[in-house]
């Protein structure tokens, strides 16, 4: 065996660690890296901040409160009583009256171009044709009936007046904003962790980092810390747009909102970590993440109430973390609920966190 010359001066005994500024600490550095990687990825910034605002704006316009639309009805021409019926109906609020030949009238009814067809049967008789299953057709029939009877000389014995109101909190946009907030919390939390970890793993960067004395706990914690920073912006953006611009009420306390949002962000981050635990490629991670997210977009009451699903599915839907988030955010914002009222939802979120986080750590592959 070869013997080498005496080793040249071995490294001197290490001096005490030099004092570090906060910026030189590894947790701070790791968190800064996460934040830089996010800001320098314009697509990620758009999907996190731009997209939800555009979506909220678009839906606010689509579902803005407008006066109820007038319903088209038809009157058959060229039969006795047609002139008189049209005179009675003309100018009735809520109706648009079309004069139609018998042929085209039938066609218009079948294709839904008109809701009700009025077929005069001489001077003092009228037949209504309409589809009983269409709510607007039933309403239009009642309005037409009233107009025709009045036109023929009926007077009402009871005098009525009315006052209409639009209650803030009952519009579609009021329903939607809490759901949008929940959906965004879920998407950005699951995505930022799953993508960040799997991207690093697929590039062997994760392995490279574990070859240094880096603390693995700090690495994972850095994702949570950077998430908290962006979370604050995300929540402010959506809530700001919702309450200040669109007039969505925020009746509950901000503290309760904060508790729900933080717990939801932790639970969804744990789910993201689970998605990332063993996945090797970014493509696989994105498929996996969508598999997890997609059912919740549908079932958890983002765009429409989850009560539309059959009774049988309700317990499962209620156990989904996004359902818990949306329901509790809605209760606090729209009904002013306190912690006492939303604890079942908070318990669901805590359960997801407590199950997914240890499981993810157990399954996690650093290489």
């Amino acid at each position: 065996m070869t013997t080498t010359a005496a080793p040249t001066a071995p490294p001197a005994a290490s001096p005490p660690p030099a004092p570090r500024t906060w910026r030189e600490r590894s947790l701070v550095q790791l968190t800064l890296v996460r934040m830089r990687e996010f800001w320098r990825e314009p697509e990620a910034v758009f999907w996190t901040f731009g997209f939800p605002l555009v979506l909220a704006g678009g839906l606010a316009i689509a579902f803005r409160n407008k006066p109820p639309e007038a319903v088209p009805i038809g009157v058959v021409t060229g039969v006795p009583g047609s002139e008189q019926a049209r005179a009675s109906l003309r100018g009735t609020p809520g109706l648009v009256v079309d004069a139609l030949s018998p042929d085209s009238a039938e066609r218009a009814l079948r294709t839904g171009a008109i809701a009700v067809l009025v077929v005069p049967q001489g001077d003092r008789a009228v037949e209504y044709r309409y589809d009983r299953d269409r709510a607007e057709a039933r309403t239009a029939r009642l309005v037409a009936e009233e107009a025709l009877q009045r036109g023929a000389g009926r007077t009402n014995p009871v005098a009525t007046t009315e006052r209409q109101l639009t209650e803030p909190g009952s519009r579609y946009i009021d329903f939607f904003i809490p759901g949008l907030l929940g959906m965004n919390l879920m998407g950005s939390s699951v995505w930022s962790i799953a993508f960040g970890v799997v991207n690093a793993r697929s590039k062997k960067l994760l392995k490279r980092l574990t070859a240094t004395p880096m603390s693995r706990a700090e690495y994972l914690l850095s994702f949570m810390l950077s998430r908290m920073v962006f979370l604050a912006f995300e929540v402010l953006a959506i809530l700001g747009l919702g309450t200040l611009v669109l007039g969505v009420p925020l009746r509950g306390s901000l503290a309760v909102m904060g508790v729900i949002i933080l717990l939801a962000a932790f639970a969804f981050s744990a789910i993201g970590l689970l998605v990332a635990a063993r996945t090797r490629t970014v493509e696989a991670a994105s498929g996996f993440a969508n598999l997890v997210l997609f059912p919740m977009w549908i079932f958890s009451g983002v765009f429409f109430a989850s009560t539309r699903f059959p009774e049988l599915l309700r317990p499962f839907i209620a156990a989904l973390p996004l359902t818990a988030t949306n329901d509790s955010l809605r209760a606090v914002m729209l009904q002013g609920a306190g912690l006492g009222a939303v604890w079942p939802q908070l318990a669901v979120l805590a359960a997801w966190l407590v199950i997914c986080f240890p499981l993810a750590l157990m399954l996690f592959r650093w290489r």
Partner: protein
Amino acid sequence: MPPVASPPRALEVRGLVKRYGDVTAVNGLDLAVEPGECFGLLGPNGAGKTTTIEICEGLTEPDAGEVFVLGRRWDRDERALRERLGIALQETQLSDKLTVRETLELFRSFYAHPRTVDDVIALVSLAEKQGARINELSGGQKQRLDVACALVGDPELLFLDEPTTGLDPQSRRQLWDLVEQFKATGRTVLLTTHYMDEAERLADRVAIVDHGRVIALGTPQELIASLGAEYVVAFSLAHEGTVSLETLRAVDGVRAARVDAGTYEVQVTAIHHALPALLGTLERSGLALSQLSTHSPTLEDVFVSLTGRALRDG
């Protein structure tokens, strides 16, 4: 070897085995690296170099065998060991979105007694690029940054896995200078390569690895001298002529002969006798040369004579 009060070996590996399914990547490999030396693992692709070095780095679990790094074991002293090692992997893509400086600040933050970022940037000649994003760097610059990340913790032992594979000649020389500077501070390097010129230039000792085993060990000079050849004569024949290897080996002064894709390589002693004899033999057989060259033997020739294959063939 009984334990004595000398400083522990920088690295000691005994009976290493690693299997991946049917493939035995490392097959009973022993190594001993002394403090202060630059030790090279030379072998073709698939020889088991990366598997071996990653086991030494504590990144892969061996199926059998023992590993002592700086006298310590991975299962007991991982955290302490990581402080004292610098590791550059064969293929790492550092985060594209970060700058050179940001990347080094990150790696620096992991160590208890790091060098300064400015020092390391100067060491790897990236001062002009310190504000550039990593996706703006050339291959050689990326590789130097990767080595810089391994050096920022001020390691006693540096692991480099194929540090110059795929680089242009100038970048390779820059990297070699970097390793030589590190060696000059008296610290230890373990490097793998499939370039014989790299091993000859950098390594104090070389282990030639094939099929997961060490098939030869020594200084580059010792290994080359073991061939007993002074020169290698390479030639090819005109008009697709052929000559039998027996005929060549029978020539006075020829130690070995082989043919690869129409090029004959003949190892000879006393070239001033052997070359005329060789040419005479060809002439008598009525064969004409289309090309002839001679060179001093290299580690490549050592590998060829041990395995019958060329290093680059893999």
